[in-house]
């Protein structure tokens, strides 16, 4: 085995201090295999060494939480079935940003595969996925062609994996900014359900119990994927292509069915998937969590290639693999199930009582490391931070619109706001026949056959807001997710977050991270949405250019079985209300809006203000309206402001509206400011809407009525907008494909 030199240590992204720590844990110098093992376990990707100090600030407990952070996925309660069994929801979000830049199709596909395994490892069958995607502009003069290729690859990768596996992709968001040009963000939010008494954990319990490897054979793919995801991209990144794993959704489907069936036998004591850092991570984490050790011999590991070294086998990130611990004497039952599904399953070792992760190769010890320090005692960095990095002016430029209707057409064709049907129609969003509200809704809604209730999921991020003010941006995000749930009638029960940032070693970036986490903590505490797990993706930088700070929040809610309102106006002659009222707006807080981005093509100032108490009152009122059937449609005002919100309400059934406002705001602000805590509802029962709003102390402003094929908005008698819903919708539905195919700029 080759000598470990300072150069080799540096090539593993291990600092001299970290190396000293390794030596003191081992009581000797590590060999190359051990160094490799430490390097992946202590990488940013696996250890969260830069963020963990701050992640502790997040609320993780709540009345619905069964399992908080630290396991493969978080778990919250769902309800009981007819036989009295309690059911739970397992969910988590994970990123696959770096691989998706290097190889978009496989990067995104394996991103889906990885998070699905996290869910069914817990004994839960995955029933829904959502994606938060961010790319560089499709019309960028330099990077446009590459950005289009990345989007195309990512979408096809997600479709390929999710469709074959058989999990519906029920929604998500796709946004564009120049900062994502070299750093696309691919965040996948997955959710599954299980019976509470059948949850499984990644714990190597029971000394003497056999350890079983199951699933795909181990190959050389993905070696050092976790380390790759913990560094910036440079010109040489293209050479990292072999680091990207290749996904096989059919294999994953077999693994799902086999694992759930093996769990049913009662012979499984613990189970964990092999994701980032592969066999290394699963063995030491399972041992660490149970306070035991694991001893394996690599000669038993099914291998795809010949001549693999222990270093390669331990660090491989080949996909679709699982590590199980069976109850001694019952291992054959487990092996039989995997054979039934045509999968490799081999006993590779056993649980020990000495707390060591001991790896042998043909009987010879090649690595011997105490499991707990390896898994849980990675160095923690309280990295220095300053004010969050931002280079936008605070002062608003002078602006005025000559033609507000033209502005609305500009918004309709904008990449952020245009119809994403071309993307989501490539995803099977209905398989498993639970999808009540799918892509395009404020929140996805799933009917749960087992409990006769419903689950709602919302997913949001806003890099622009967070760039202007990470704390406020994060607070707004959580509030918007909760509002999205309210619009379909659901109440939050838990949350997961994906923190996408640049290089934490830069104090201005670290400042963004700290502020954003604290903002999430404040809002999740207030809205009673504890964070039960998530993912941190740092070093999203290319050539020193960091992505906008982009925390993405996934919120899970529950609700009784109802027919939830959609966003679209359903019929003419219905009363229109703006719950929450017109809201506050000013020039400075217009700087992060879609109007500023798409119409004025600039960024300044601050995100909108939010009053949490007022927000909560609006949400409570809207939730009751949705649940009681008081409203036919409900849609929150967010990106694009009230003007764009009304357009989105008009599109689904091509029902327009006549809106009369009474506000002192100037038209640009009135139509396009993005102040939160506002929801547009249409109703056949105005008295009931007013009664519910009043009871919750939420303003209910009657703004007009639905009707005909035109959207007409006026303020104090002056007409601001008059558009044909069909024409605007055509612009909106055609835009994405035009951007993708021509890459040409579309002007209104």
């Amino acid at each position: 085995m080759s000598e470990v030199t300072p150069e080799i240590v540096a090539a593993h992204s291990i600092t001299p201090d970290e190396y000293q720590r390794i030596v003191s844990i081992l009581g000797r110098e590590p060999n190359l295999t051990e160094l490799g093992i430490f390097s992946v376990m202590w990488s940013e990707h696996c250890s969260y060494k830069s963020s963990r100090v701050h992640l502790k600030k997040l609320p993780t407990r709540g009345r619905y939480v069964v399992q908080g952070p630290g396991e493969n996925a978080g778990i919250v309660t769902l309800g009981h079935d007819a036989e009295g069994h309690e059911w739970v929801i397992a969910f988590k979000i994970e990123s696959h940003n770096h691989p998706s830049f290097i190889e978009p199709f496989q990067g995104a596909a394996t991103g889906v595969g990885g998070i699905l395994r996290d869910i069914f490892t817990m004994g839960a069958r995955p029933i829904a996925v959502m994606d938060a995607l961010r790319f560089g502009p499709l019309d960028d003069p330099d990077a446009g062609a590459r950005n289009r290729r990345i989007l195309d690859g990512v979408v096809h990768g997600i479709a390929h994996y999710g469709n074959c596996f058989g999990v519906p992709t029920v929604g998500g968001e796709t946004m564009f900014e120049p900062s994502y040009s070299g750093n696309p963000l691919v965040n996948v939010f997955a959710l599954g359900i299980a019976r509470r008494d059948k949850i499984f954990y990644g714990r190597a319990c029971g000394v003497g119990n056999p350890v079983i490897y199951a699933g795909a054979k181990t190959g050389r793919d993905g070696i050092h994927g976790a380390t790759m995801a913990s560094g910036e991209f440079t010109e040489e990144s293209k050479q990292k292509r072999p680091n990207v794993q290749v996904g096989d959704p059919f294999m994953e489907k077999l693994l799902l069915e086999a694992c759930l069936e093996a769990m049913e036998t009662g012979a499984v004591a613990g189970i964990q998937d092999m994701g980032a850092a592969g066999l290394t991570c699963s063995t030491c984490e399972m041992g660490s969590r149970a306070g035991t050790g694991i001893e394996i011999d690599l000669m038993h590991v099914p291998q795809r290639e010949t001549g693999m070294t222990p270093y390669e086998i331990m660090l491989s990130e080949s996909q679709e693999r699982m590590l199980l611990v069976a109850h001694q004497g019952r291992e054959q039952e487990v092996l039989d199930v995997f054979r039934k599904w045509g999968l490799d399953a081999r006993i590779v070792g056993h649980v020990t009582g000495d707390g060591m992760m001991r790896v042998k190769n043909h009987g010879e010890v090649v690595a011997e490391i105490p499991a707990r320090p390896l898994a849980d005692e990675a160095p923690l960095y309280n990295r220095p931070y300053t004010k969050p990095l931002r280079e936008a002016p605070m002062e608003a430029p002078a602006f005025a619109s000559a033609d507000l209707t033209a502005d609305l057409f500009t918004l309709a064709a904008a990449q952020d706001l245009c119809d994403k049907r071309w993307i989501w129609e490539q995803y099977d969003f209905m398989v498993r026949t639970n999808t009540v509200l799918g892509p395009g809704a404020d929140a996805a809604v799933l009917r749960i056959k087992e409990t006769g209730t419903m689950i709602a999921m919302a997913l949001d991020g806003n890099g622009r807001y967070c760039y202007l003010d990470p704390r406020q941006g994060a607070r707004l995000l959580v509030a918007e997710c909760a509002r999205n749930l309210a619009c379909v009638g659901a109440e939050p029960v838990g949350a997961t977050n994906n923190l996408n940032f640049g290089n934490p070693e830069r104090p201005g970036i670290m400042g963004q991270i700290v502020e954003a986490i604290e903002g999430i903590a404040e809002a999740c505490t207030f809205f009673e949405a504890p964070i039960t797990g998530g993912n941190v993706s740092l070093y999203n930088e290319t050539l020193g250019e960091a992505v906008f700070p982009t925390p993405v929040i996934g919120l899970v809610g529950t609700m009784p079985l109802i027919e939830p309102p959609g966003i679209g106006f359903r019929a003419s002659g219905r009363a229109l209300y703006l719950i929450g009222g017109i809201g506050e707006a000013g020039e400075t807080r217009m700087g992060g809006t879609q109007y500023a981005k798409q119409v004025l093509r600039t960024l300044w100032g601050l995100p909108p203000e939010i009053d949490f108490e007022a927000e909560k009152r609006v949400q409570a009122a809207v939730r009751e309206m949705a649940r009681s059937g008081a409203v036919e449609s409900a849609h929150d005002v967010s990106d694009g402001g009230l003007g764009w919100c009304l357009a989105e309400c008009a599109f689904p059934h091509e029902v327009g509206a006549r809106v009369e406002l009474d506000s002192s705001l100037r038209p640009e602000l009135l139509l396009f400011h993005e102040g939160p805590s506002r929801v547009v509802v249409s109703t056949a029962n105005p008295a009931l809407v007013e009664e519910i709003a009043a009871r919750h102390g939420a303003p209910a402003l009657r703004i007009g009525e639905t009707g005909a094929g035109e959207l007409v908005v006026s303020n104090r008698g002056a007409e601001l907008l008059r558009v044909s819903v069909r024409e605007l919708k055509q612009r909106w539905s055609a835009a994405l494909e035009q951007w993708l195919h021509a890459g040409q700029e579309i002007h209104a």
Partner: protein
Amino acid sequence: MKFGVVVFPGSNCDHDAWHAAGRVAGHQAEFLWHNEDTVRGADCVILPGGFSYGDYLRCGAIAKFSPVMNAVKRHAQEGGLVLGICNGFQILTECGLLPGALIRNRGLNFICKPVRLRVETVNSPFTCAYEPGQETVIPIAHGEGCYVADERTLDELEAEDRVAFRYLDNPNGSLRDIAGILNPGRNVLGMMPHPERAVEPLLGSAGGLGVFHSLARCFAERTR
């Protein structure tokens, strides 16, 4: 009436078919494992959607060699009912129970959406509960759903009234807008749209319920 839902390793609409036939339509329904050469006395066998054996080669190309397909063929030859949905339709064409083939969608992308269909014949056990020419909405979800066959086969299908469903807005390039066809004995139906996804109004459409109602009605008449 008893339904048997075949489970290939990569089937992923098996639970949905079981739910639709069993829970919603109220029939007896059980799963049939792909490695067993029997349909376990099912009156109607459903070949569900999914990716039978991964389908990396060609959809359904490997499934036709599975033991359960021997049993399904025997069942069909004896006049038993077989409903192939999506991947099931692909398998039926691969194993020769239905003519033609399903190739990549015209636009090359996977498409998932509710589509409008016209019921082209009510002279079949799968469609007899619909009105002649009835329009209905049933979702599709496939990447390889473009139905092709030679002209003679297409003419024959039409002449023998064996086109069961046509697309009103052809989503995938299928020749003559064909969405579902019957075998000459009219006891085997293959269709790309998913009737099992359209049996509950809460999920957007109950347009597929007619298939299950038809089967029940026909079965009741057969056994009377």
